[in-house]
């Protein structure tokens, strides 16, 4: 809201000067952020006067029309200057603003006597832009006949002003008016406030009504006042002061009828609409739109209305979208002589919904959405009629009103609660004063606070407390630390996630955070899912990426691509994030409060599944060159290793299996399983995809389901006493078929559960002359130790035999001779 300081000051009685900086400081403290302060006319200096154009000589010999004007610039008959002017929107006899030689206009534009177009020009006739008031440069400024020729234009036109551009929070609809802002400023400055409503002269009711008002949508419209005027002069000029205020407030003057409605809206906060009465047939009613009803609005859009849209209609059709925008057909034109002025009160939610549906926010809808004073419609109507009568020569012909009696909100006065919310001992008198200053009434028994009609946002003690605190200053609130109950720190899952991140970072991987938005193309690199298996956005940022990721892998590839594009081909990154998978697709349970655990469970059943995943991509060099440690490149096994070691570190039991998955190298990819649950996949990116990326090296890529892994974390590990009996080291080499994965041999040994087998590991795999073709020899180093005695040779032989036996039975393994 742009508020000229002169306009605000009209309603504040004070002896001291209200400066822009004083006002800005006051508004800031009250919760209105100052977005800008514009000093209009700041660049004006020297002799700038009101002048009257006496004669116009048209100079036609130039490319564009040029006028040489005789302009009276002073009271004496001889004070006449010849001035060359390129505009032609004025007539002889008009009052204009003349910058005399020696004066300076904004932008350090010095005016001097000069010869131009073959004439001596003694000054300049100014446009609004040249005066620094508005952007209008379509012609020079023509004034109504109310100013003295030769008087100082800067003071008589109030060209110097300060305009505060205030950010108004959405709950403070009252502050979208000079009325509301002046009340705040007066309160903050401890000055007397004059409600502009109190200055409005009441219209004497005409005996007959010229038009009938009806409300058929009483849910969403509580008041409708239709005033009619005739004999309006369509050529009437809007007085300068109204135009000035409109322009400083950021609105463009259009015509008297329109300017008056805007002016009243800015001053009082009540949106008004003027119709050309000759275009209206019969009674005017507020109703919901009919099915498939159309309306061409003032922006020349032909809009299909919804049946929840509220319209102002005559007997035939909708005239305007109530509280949002007028219609073209009933618009005030340059011929309008009879006017219907609508002042109504529409519900905030209805206007908001309509404005949103039609993607249109107007000055009117902004105000209705944030709450207009429901008691003010008549006063606004009166003021507008008075202005149309005074400046447009109109006569008031009648008014018809339909209005629901006002319900004023009352709030129990709870001083204890005030103190609890504030956190310190507020003074009762201060609380009183603030509440009264904002317009509340408190009854004599201190039981009830009656909220003013212009503050529909005040509904609870908390709302009142905010008022008291913001007016007295948030800086008065002391600092206290509440004491929380003894904490339990992070949950096991949260702790584990932090540890996994640290673990991966310590292994040289860097965390990245990708967007979850994906395209078909990216997703299909790793799966041929039908789109019904994907979770889709209805309003994606980009039409190419309408899906929520069902895997971290496509995002990792995109990140890889960006890094390659920036000249970096050595990449080791991980991401921990949620993916989105379809749920059974039930309907959201009906909304009712209070919410409960059961309700929450119902909601969660409808939401897409959102497991937490960890993804890894490795390619290029593992580390920089050094003469000592030779440079090593990431290969297919590293990626399996990295994610496998996460499971290892956190003691999650798992086994690996060959995986065949789209996007992966068919022979270099492993799945991780635990007790029938698939935990994830790791392996080499399919060389075809690598080629698509123009990647110089093979790429390792992996993804694990952390949500599943976290379920498998052991709660507490039990220690086993460390035995100090001697270790017995034995090697066992067996020959098995090539296709048997080594890890399976090892898990087969684990399954035997020989408690004396402390550890074992593969130390050699041999293929060659000494073993048959299609077979390999796997050598395992076994370490036996007993917790109770020194093992005997017989015992050790027996263990070895047991292991060999098991490998023979399961895999047909032969002892290598």
């Amino acid at each position, binding site marked *: 809201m742009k508020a000229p300081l002169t306009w605000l000051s009209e309603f504040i009685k004070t002896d001291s000067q209200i400066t822009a900086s004083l006002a800005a400081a006051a508004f800031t403290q009250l919760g209105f952020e100052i977005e800008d302060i514009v000093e209009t006319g700041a660049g004006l200096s020297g002799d700038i006067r009101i002048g009257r154009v006496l004669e116009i000589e048209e100079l036609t010999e130039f490319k564009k029309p040029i006028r040489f004007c005789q302009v009276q610039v002073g009271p004496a008959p001889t004070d006449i200057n010849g001035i060359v002017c390129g505009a032609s929107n004025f007539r002889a006899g008009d009052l204009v603003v003349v910058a005399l030689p020696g004066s300076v206009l904004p932008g350090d534009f010095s005016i001097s006597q000069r010869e131009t177009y073959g004439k001596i020009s003694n000054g300049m006739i100014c446009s609004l832009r040249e005066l620094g008031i508005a952007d209008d440069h379509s012609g020079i400024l023509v004034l109504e006949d109310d100013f003295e020729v030769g008087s100082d234009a800067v003071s008589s036109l109030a060209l110097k002003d300060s305009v505060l551009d205030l950010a108004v929070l959405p709950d403070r609809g009252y502050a979208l008016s000079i009325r509301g802002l002046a009340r705040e400023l007066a309160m903050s400055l401890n000055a007397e406030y004059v409600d502009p409503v109190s200055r409005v002269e009441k219209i004497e009711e005409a005996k007959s009504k010229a038009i009938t008002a009806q409300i058929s949508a009483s849910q969403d419209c509580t008041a409708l006042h239709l005033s009619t005027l005739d004999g309006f002069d369509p050529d009437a000029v809007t007085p300068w002061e109204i135009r000035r205020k409109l322009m400083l407030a950021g609105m463009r003057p259009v015509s008297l009828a329109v300017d008056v409605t805007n002016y009243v809206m800015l001053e009082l906060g009540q949106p008004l609409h003027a119709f050309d009465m000759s275009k209206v047939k019969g009674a005017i009613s507020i109703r919901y739109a009919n099915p498939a009803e159309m309306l061409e609005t003032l922006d020349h859009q032909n809009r299909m209305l919804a049946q929840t849209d509220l319209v102002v209609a005559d007997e035939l059709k909708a005239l305007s979208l109530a509280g949002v925008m007028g219609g073209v057909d009933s618009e005030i034109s340059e011929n309008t002589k009879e006017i219907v002025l609508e002042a109504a009160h529409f519900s905030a939610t209805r206007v908001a919904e309509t404005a949103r549906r039609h993607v249109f926010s107007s000055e009117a809808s902004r105000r209705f959405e944030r709450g207009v004073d429901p008691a003010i419609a008549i006063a606004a109507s009166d003021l507008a009629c008075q202005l149309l009568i005074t400046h447009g020569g109109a006569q008031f012909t009648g008014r018809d009103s339909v209005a629901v009696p006002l319900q004023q909100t009352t709030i129990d006065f709870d001083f204890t609660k005030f103190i609890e919310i504030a956190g310190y001992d507020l003074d009762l008198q201060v609380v009183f004063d603030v509440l009264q200053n904002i317009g509340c009434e408190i009854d004599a028994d201190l039981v009830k606070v009656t909220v003013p009609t212009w503050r529909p946002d005040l509904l*609870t003690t908390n709302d009142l407390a905010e008022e008291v605190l913001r007016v007295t200053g948030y800086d008065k609130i002391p600092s206290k630390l509440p004491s929380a109950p003894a904490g*339990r720190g992070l949950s096991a899952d949260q702790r584990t996630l932090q540890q996994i991140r640290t673990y991966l970072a*310590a292994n040289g991987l860097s965390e990245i*955070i990708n967007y979850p938005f994906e395209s078909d193309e990216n997703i299909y690199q790793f799966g041929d899912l039908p789109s019904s298996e994907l979770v*889709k956005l209805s309003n994606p940022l980009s039409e190419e990426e309408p899906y929520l990721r069902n895997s971290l892998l496509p995002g990792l590839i995109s990140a890889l691509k960006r*890094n390659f594009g920036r000249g970096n081909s050595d990449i080791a990154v991980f991401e921990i994030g949620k993916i*989105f998978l379809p749920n059974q*697709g039930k309907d959201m349970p009906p909304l009712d409060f209070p919410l409960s*655990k059961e309700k929450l469970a119902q909601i969660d059943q409808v939401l897409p599944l959102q497991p937490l995943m960890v993804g890894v991509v490795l390619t290029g060099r593992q580390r920089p060159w050094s003469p000592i440690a030779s440079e090593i490149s990431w290969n297919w096994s590293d990626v399996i290793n990295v994610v496998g070691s996460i499971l290892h570190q956190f003691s999650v039991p798992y086994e690996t299996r060959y995986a065949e998955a789209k996007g992966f190298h068919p022979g270099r990819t492993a799945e991780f399983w635990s007790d029938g649950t698939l935990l994830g996949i790791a392996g080499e990116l399919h060389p075809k995809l690598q080629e698509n990326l123009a990647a110089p090296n093979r790429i390792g890529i992996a993804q694990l389901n952390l949500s599943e892994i976290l379920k498998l974390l052991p709660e507490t590990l039990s220690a086993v006493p460390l035995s100090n009996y001697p270790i017995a080291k034995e090697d066992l080499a067996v020959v098995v078929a090539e296709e048997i994965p080594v890890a399976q041999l090892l898990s087969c040994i684990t399954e035997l559960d020989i408690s004396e087998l402390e550890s074992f590991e593969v130390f050699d795999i041999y293929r060659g002359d000494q073993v048959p073709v299609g077979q390999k020899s796997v050598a395992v180093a076994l370490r036996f130790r007993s917790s109770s005695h020194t093992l005997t040779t017989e015992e050790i032989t027996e263990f070895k035999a047991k292991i060999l036996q098991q490998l023979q039975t399961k895999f047909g393994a032969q002892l290598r001779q």
Partner: protein
Amino acid sequence: MSSESNSKILNMSHLEDARNLAEAAIKEASDLDSLKSVRLSHLGDKSQLALANRELGKLPAADRAKFGAVIGAYRSELQEIFAAKQIELEALRDELILQSEKEDVSLATLAIDRGGIHPLTATMNRIIEIFTAMGYQVDEGPEAEAEVLNFDALNIPANHPARSMQDTFYLSSDYPGVLLRTQTSPVQIRSLINRELPVYVISPGKVFRSDDLDQTHTPVFHQVEGLVVDKGIGMAELKGTISHFAKEMFGSDVETRLRPSYFPFTEPSAEMDVFFNGRWVEWGGCGVVNPRVLAAVGIDPTVYSGFAFGMGIERTLMFRNGVTDMRDMVEGDIRFTKMFGVIS
């Protein structure tokens, strides 16, 4: 003949010469190899003292004892000298080996490549640490969230202007009433439903608003919200908590201030600013929990009250760590994370 030769070897001055020669030879040995040959020639079976010892039997008993004692004394003296020399030369040898193994140790560090935790995560972890130390718990919620929890339960009814303050990603018609949460506040609702009172929680996480990515906007960003619901909680407790938080994050001398603001889920509401690097910076929003929010989850607002606060982590990172372009945080450029390592 034999007595002559005996007398020649078993001669006191000869023995003394042999001893002195041996000692000199030992002392002259410069390495273990030469020491070894000294041992063979001067202390071995064929050394003068060994030969003399072998001749002792030929002497008369009285001489035998006298010469025997001298030879024995010389031999044990020489053994000691030899042993000392051996230790000395072994130490020298070891020293030379170590010297020969010297490397340019600085080369080893060339092969270090560091990974890192994304600074957004690290910053959130730091915040979590501050609050868990104060006794708070950490709650997280789904990113695709029910509209009811993201808006309605937070006192943002349909058509409330606050809903148009933020552009929301809605899921397709397969998921009516589901959106990508625009704030971490729905987690507050979940915490209040799932937890016993009093509640002291912090909820970090991703939030979504349909802004295009540019230097200062990103459609996906991170927030941390705090929520306290207990008896007797008001603006003063909020102010104290925020001020402690800010000091932990930005330094013990940092100032905070509150300015009136509006959020549907808090009343009174405030913007919080911190005075950092010589200027006031807008950090986040906060306020006393609106009683309607408490009522929406079945908590009696006449008994309990609370406060909530929240801030953007990207924004925090921008002014705290001097990140000037939001795009650097979200584009997955490995250089960005590496810059920070694991520091928060």
